[in-house]
């Protein structure tokens, strides 16, 4: 009797644990957070995460996907100013909605961009909007009202060059804010919205304000 009880109970427990583990994989946030900087976020956007200049992900399951590097989960302090530097290496895809070419929600309502002009010469300036056809990605946290279009690297620029975009924004109270690139940049998927656009760790993630 006791053997039977323990046998059936052990079997049931194993089945339940296996199912919980199997389904529960969805509960775990996969990419680890970017920490260590209290008020600075240094990010890199690339056309293929396997071929990034700063943080190449060689063992990524999708090395040819676009992505934010080194991770898309960012932890920042509450009620403080966050300085963001994005090293943008991808070329332009273009915005569906030209309105999104404008900068919103940053301090001063602008961003500082170091880029290459049509002749391949380095330039630097403060911008409040960009040509909507020249956007490569966007840095957008809707719940904080932050929206920054990222200028694509000019075709005339030298090889392996990077547009450096810097801006700052303020966080509110603690919470989790989903963010998402608003340029349908998932190449090879229908309308560009598949693949990296819908997978956490590439073109979407979480801003954790603590």
């Amino acid at each position, binding site marked *: 009797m006791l053997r039977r009880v323990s046998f059936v109970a052990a079997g049931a427990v194993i089945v339940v644990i296996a199912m919980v583990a199997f389904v529960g994989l969805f*509960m775990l946030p*996969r990419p680890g957070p970017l920490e260590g900087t209290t008020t600075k976020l240094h990010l890199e956007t690339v056309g293929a995460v396997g071929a990034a200049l700063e943080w190449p992900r060689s063992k990524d399951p999708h090395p040819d996907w676009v992505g934010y590097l080194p991770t898309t989960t960012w932890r920042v302090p509450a009620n403080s100013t966050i300085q963001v530097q994005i090293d943008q290496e991808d070329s332009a895809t273009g915005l569906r909605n030209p309105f999104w070419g404008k900068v919103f929600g940053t301090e001063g309502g602008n961003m500082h961009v170091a880029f290459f002009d049509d002749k391949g010469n380095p330039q630097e300036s403060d911008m409040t909007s960009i040509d909507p056809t020249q956007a490569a990605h966007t840095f957008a946290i809707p719940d904080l009202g932050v929206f920054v279009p990222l200028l694509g690297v000019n075709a005339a620029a030298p090889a392996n060059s990077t547009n450096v975009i810097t801006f700052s924004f303020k966080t509110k109270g603690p919470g989790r804010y989903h963010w998402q690139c608003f340029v349908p940049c998932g190449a090879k998927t229908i309308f560009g919205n598949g693949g990296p656009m819908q997978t956490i760790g590439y073109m979407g993630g979480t801003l954790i304000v603590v």
Partner: protein
Amino acid sequence: MVSPARVSERRLSIPNNPITGILLAIPAYFVGIWLGTLFGLNDERNTGVILGYVFATAAFLAGVGFLNYPLERLFGWRVTPISDPDENRGIGRFFRLSLDHKVIGIQYLVTILLMLLFGGIGAMLIRTSLLVPDASITPAGNYLPLIGLHSVMMIFITSAVIVGPFGNYLVPLMIGARRMAFPRLEALSFWVVPPAAVILAAATFWGGFPTGWTGYPPLSEQALQGMDSYIVGFTLIAVALVSSGVNMLATIIGLRAPGMTWTRLPIFVWGIFTTSILGLLAAPVLAAALTMLAMDRSVQTTFFLASNGGSNYLWENLFWFFGHPEVYIFILPAFGIIMEIVPHFARKPLWGYRTGVVGLFGVALLSWFVWQHHLFVSGIAPVLRPFYMLSTELISIPTGIIFLVTLGTLWRARVWFTVPMLFCLGFLFNFLIGGISGVYLSDVPTDVTLHGSYFSMAHFHYTIMGGEIFALMAACYYWLPKMTGKMLSPTIGRIHFWTMFIAFNSTFFPLFLAGLLNMPRRVSTYDPSLVGLNRWVSISAYFLFASMVLFAGNLIYSWFFVAKPAVANPWHARSLEWQVPTPPPARNFDRVPVIVAGPYDYGIPNARPVADLGGMVGATGGG
């Protein structure tokens, strides 16, 4: 069926069992992947994954033994005959291809209860992540696949949970037949379900799919390879629905015993009959739509891509043309169960038997004319809305007839409050709320407000969980003694009923309120002001899960530890399935029974026994 002479000369080729099936399915899967990648139709390997699943399923079915009979007939090969009810009475018969409808019923029941556990764990994880208003437990990108996994697994279950176990087991017994009309088709309708469940669960390896159970394009076209699990798995369920439907219809029409006239047919069989009509006609539409979606995703057709000349309305119409009859596939057999069980415990004839049958057919017929009420806010021509609003509201009439038949049976009855009867009464309470909330949703003005909110989510959980699953529990407590030969503990059963009934209402009734307060479905975050409501619901949901664990505990306790043998007719019921010994013999009846009376003639003086069984040792009919 194999005659004894043939058995003696049979040749063993390969052992046919699920292990062989799995061993064949694994290489077949990789052949499919390789072939799809070879053609290079799509760089994201959709073609490979779809072909892999299809090949693996075909190889699994071949390994289980479905090729034996065709090979024998086509080429005259001597291959192992599939097991026969007379040949194999051991426990092993449940683990291989069997043509015995009673074995298939048990196989179905166990498979579906395991799938129910899986889907239920998914529900618990959803409720756990909704304990907090932000997405801190489950990230937004992982919440939708979780919803998808829970919803599609539950849809798989509820499509088959009554017709599969109880339809297959009971229909031949109830109509006085020895088998189903097409035993191989019946076995096929079961053996595609485990691959469908495994393929669906395999979506997790590809990151799941974000569309829920409706699979709307363009999202379903953009989704990753997890979507292919949805496509192939759901197609297999459609195959099961069609094969089971045609088989049930042929059996009920063709194999009734002498004297089993249409008006003596147990009402549960009528429930299965109407369900089978719906399954037979609706599931092909789903299979066609899914095939088109698979082609869009693999060979670059554009059926559902508006930018290239297709239309995503096409999917919405095809899907809901299947989808709305599908929800009556869930509930019609449940109606059958309720109307079947209530007269036995009210000890009265079923009040308005013919009216009840008309009600079942009314629901089945009207279910074809309502599907666009799912599209009220999708931008359909507004002129269509009044028609679909009216047709949807009309469905409440035959449903009301079924309620009146049941309540008329209970009227002034001396009710025997057994556990199955308690679940029937619980069904009436829950389904009333579910049905009435459905009338609100069918009205265009309210639907425009409530569409996509927790109100509709609470509505369909009231009808499916509060309706169909309560009917399933009634059926389990009522018929499992016949099917397994062991009584289930009524004490645990009563505790199970009350915890389940209270926890169910405590879980889903507040969700109507959440819906009215604009909490949207399928979103991992919600307004922080609703956190108290959601925590209440989550904790109630844990109690609901605990009540289901109690049911599982009752099964294990009653089958393995107490094992109290059931008498042939513990409920003193009149209907035919209770007149045979428990568990029923391999051939059901010694000779074909002759039916001489209806199954519900309780309290009628000088009522004849229901059938002449030819001297078979059985129980006496109740009276």
